[in-house]
């Protein structure tokens, strides 16, 4: 019966899993994309948040930047939500962009191309206004109707959320609560764009088992919160009660100035709590039977909340703002290298500018090139190497591709500005031009020689036998002369290569054969030829008659063993020869010459038999 039960259980599990997967697959097909702005109107010096929500997919391909004249819009992070209710899976991803105005005016944020679930989508255009005056209170969703349709990710309040914010709830143990949350942000006054650490702690009474359901929900309009790494779990005594403590660490930054009440951080959990006994069982005898426990427990769904976090967000000062400022707030340093200081003529050089330090790396724009006359540059690619879990410290590398339009001996320099919140001042860092040798595609050695750079650039002088088109390319846009025929297929796909390879295999085998033959010849030939030679030598020895009797019998025995075919006669002859040899060897007369008669008889007997054998 037990095996049957196991099989049934497995079958049911598989059935449910299959259904869940099929359902997930079906639901994944309904992909939709929407976008919204946190505010449709801001003042200069403030920042807004643009969110793109992709529903029905767990991942989407979104642009890192959205190009809009007068605005800098950069991707800062993403959050994913997956829900499974009655085996119906729904998922959505929210991509957050920071919108930083570079000037005042009205803007149209163009739609972004999104690829999700193998399909391409385009978000609608959004209008956006930047005033010169101080920020005016506006309806967060005015002018962004898309947000009303569906975007309510963590960080943007839901309808009716204001009441909760107005009535902060902090549960304390002395209030008789089993669980409560705390939020700690060491910096209550910060600048827009400045990142500050935030710690959220949830206390659970250690006596009652708790299961956390879902993810931490924290954020509101106007702040950006980094993804929370896995929490740390510790134990702490407070007011005589032992609590299990879950601690979340992250960073937050504000995008708009003013007073800001960040909504409580919420965490859904399920607590197993003691419940009331049914009527008739609530007596001391029953409690005794249950080991002193209440006997009945209840699963209670609880949403644990922290208090409201109040922040004062200061705008970035307009005074003294450098032109090269592109949103970096923190403390940084700069370093630059040219990864290929001797590019071939016409080839690009790469200037890598490294910005290290701590601050808002995600909202940071690229440095500005200086002394870039005679260079054509492209927007840099960037890469961030974080040195901590929260991506607060690290190094961001910007890789500029530069093509020389005239002979160059130095790379462009670089300028990078950031706002230091500790001194409340803008800081501009510069890196000097670095030595390199680069020339445009059309430069000839003679031209380069005039600038004095030829001596530093051996690659500009074509070496004999090389394709002149590579070493001295024509002036940009000028046609190439000379025709070189090349195959459309790789050598390994061509019959001549296969034939040549086969020929080489045969040649190698032939070479091995020749060498083997030579080796055998040098060792006296094959086994058969060496045998024939030995027999001839023995015959010559036996018929010569110049050896003593012992040696004669030794040779005769060898000869008989080698030449005579197996037969009784051979065995009898060999036996006689062996006996006589041993007699001569261990007796007397072995060193004397063999008597002539015996010699002739022996030869006759061997000749008779050997003639047949040979």
């Amino acid at each position, binding site marked *: 019966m037990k095996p049957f039960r196991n099989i049934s259980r497995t079958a049911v599990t598989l059935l449910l899993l299959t259904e869940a997967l099929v359902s997930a697959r079906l639901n994944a097909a309904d992909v939709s994309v929407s976008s919204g702005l946190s505010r449709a109107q801001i003042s200069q010096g403030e920042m807004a948040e643009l969110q793109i929500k992709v529903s029905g997919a767990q991942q989407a391909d979104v642009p890192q930047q959205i190009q809009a004249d007068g605005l800098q819009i950069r991707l800062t992070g993403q959050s994913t939500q997956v829900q499974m209710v009655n085996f119906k899976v729904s998922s959505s991803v929210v991509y957050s962009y920071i919108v930083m105005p570079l000037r005042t005016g009205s803007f149209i944020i163009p739609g972004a191309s999104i690829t999700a679930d193998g399909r391409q989508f385009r978000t609608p255009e959004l209008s956006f206004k930047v005033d010169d005056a101080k920020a005016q209170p506006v309806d967060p969703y005015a002018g962004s109707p898309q947000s009303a349709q569906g975007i309510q990710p963590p960080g943007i309040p839901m309808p009716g959320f204001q009441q909760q914010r107005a009535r902060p709830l902090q549960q304390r143990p002395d209030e008789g609560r089993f669980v409560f949350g705390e939020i700690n942000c060491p910096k209550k006054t910060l600048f827009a764009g400045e990142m500050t650490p935030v710690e959220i702690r949830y206390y659970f009474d250690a006596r009652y088992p708790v299961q956390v359901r879902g993810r931490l929900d924290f954020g509101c309009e106007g702040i950006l919160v980094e993804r929370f790494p896995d929490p740390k779990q510790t134990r702490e005594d407070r007011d005589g009660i032992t609590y299990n403590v879950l601690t979340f660490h992250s960073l937050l930054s504000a995008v708009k100035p003013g007073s800001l009440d960040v909504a409580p951080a919420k965490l859904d959990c399920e607590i197993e709590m003691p419940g009331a006994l049914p009527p008739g069982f609530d007596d001391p005898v029953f409690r005794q039977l249950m080991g002193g426990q209440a006997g009945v427990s209840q699963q209670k769904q609880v949403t644990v909340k922290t208090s409201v976090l109040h922040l004062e967000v200061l705008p970035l000062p307009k005074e003294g703002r450098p032109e090269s400022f592109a949103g970096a707030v923190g403390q940084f340093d700069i370093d630059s290298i040219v990864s290929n200081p001797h590019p071939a003529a016409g080839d690009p050089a790469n200037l890598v500018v490294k910005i290290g330090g701590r601050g808002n790396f995600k909202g940071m724009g690229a440095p500005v090139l200086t002394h870039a006359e005679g260079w054509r540059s492209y927007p840099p690619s960037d890469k961030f190497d974080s040195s901590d879990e929260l991506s607060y410290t690290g190094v961001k590398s910007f890789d500029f591709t530069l093509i020389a339009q005239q002979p160059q001996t130095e790379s462009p320099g670089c300028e990078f500005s950031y706002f230091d919140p500790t001194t409340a001042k803008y800081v501009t860092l510069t890196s000097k031009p670095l030595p390199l040798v680069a020339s445009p595609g059309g430069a000839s050695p003679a031209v380069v020689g005039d600038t004095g750079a030829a001596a530093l650039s051996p690659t500009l002088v074509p070496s004999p036998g090389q394709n002149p088109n590579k070493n001295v390319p024509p002036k940009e*846009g000028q046609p190439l002369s000379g025709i*070189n025929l090349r195959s*459309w*297929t790789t050598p390994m*796909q061509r019959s001549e290569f296969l034939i040549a390879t086969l020929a080489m295999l045969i040649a190698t085998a032939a*070479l091995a054969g020749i060498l083997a033959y030579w080796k055998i010849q040098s060792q006296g030939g094959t086994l058969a030829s060496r045998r024939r030679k030995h027999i001839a030598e023995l015959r010559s020895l036996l018929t010569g008659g110049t050896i003593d009797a012992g040696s004669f019998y030794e040779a005769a025995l060898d000869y008989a063993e080698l030449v005579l075919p197996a037969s009784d006669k051979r065995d009898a002859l060999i036996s006689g020869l062996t006996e006589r040899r041993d007699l001569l060897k261990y007796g007397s007369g072995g060193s004397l010459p063999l008597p002539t008669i015996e010699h002739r008889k022996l030869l006759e007997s061997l000749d008779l038999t050997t003639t047949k054998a040979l």
Partner: protein
Amino acid sequence: MKRHTLQLSSFLFLLTITFASSLVVSLHAGLPEDFASANANLASGHADKALSTYKTLLTYPEFKTSGSAEIWYNRGLAEMQTSDAVAASLSFRRALLLDPSLAPARIELSKTLGLLGIPVPTGWRERTMQSIHPETMIVTGAVIGWIGALLLVVLLFQSSRRKGLIILSLLLILFGHGASVMGTLVDPRRTARNSAVITAKTAPTLRATPADSATESGTVEPGTLISILSRNGAWWYVSTGSGPGALQGWIPSNAATPLLSSSKGSS
């Protein structure tokens, strides 16, 4: 024995030279007058005339099995001057297919793709090809590998075996044939048979099945390099890449031109 060694060395030398020469298919075809006149037309701003001549040149019999990176590059320049960036991207891609180390073609392709809003490929294959031509790598590697093999055979039959030389010959075999395989892997011509470029003026729609009424699954921008995964009559099942953002779907075959075509000159 000395005489034998001399004969053997001559034999090996001749063998490897024969092998190398059998692989070299590039030969200078001279400078046809038409090519020179087309170049002159292009330089003087008569791109239409130049383009017409380049197209005619590419129908010459010597271009049936081979190609000239220079002609395709110049044709691309002429197409750029006639504001046909999509066709130019195909020509520059073909020039780079024939000679991946041709720097001017690489620069012009980057510019053209930039105009079309298509990312420029910058992988390890491209970087390797910029430093050494795959054909050079394959042929040189094969020659070195076979020299190593012949040397190993000779050393194995010698009475006094020298360990150092045997190790050297094994290294030559590994390095040579390894370079040959590596060259084949990076050679864009290996997979070009199933590659094509979108040459339709408007972005064709990717469809779930080969039918005009089938569900749309996105569009592919003109100038994009695609991989042909399957063919069904006048429809191709294509992929725009291998990454997570790659799209797949059916497009009409006349919306794209194969990178390698049986009629390379005419397309």
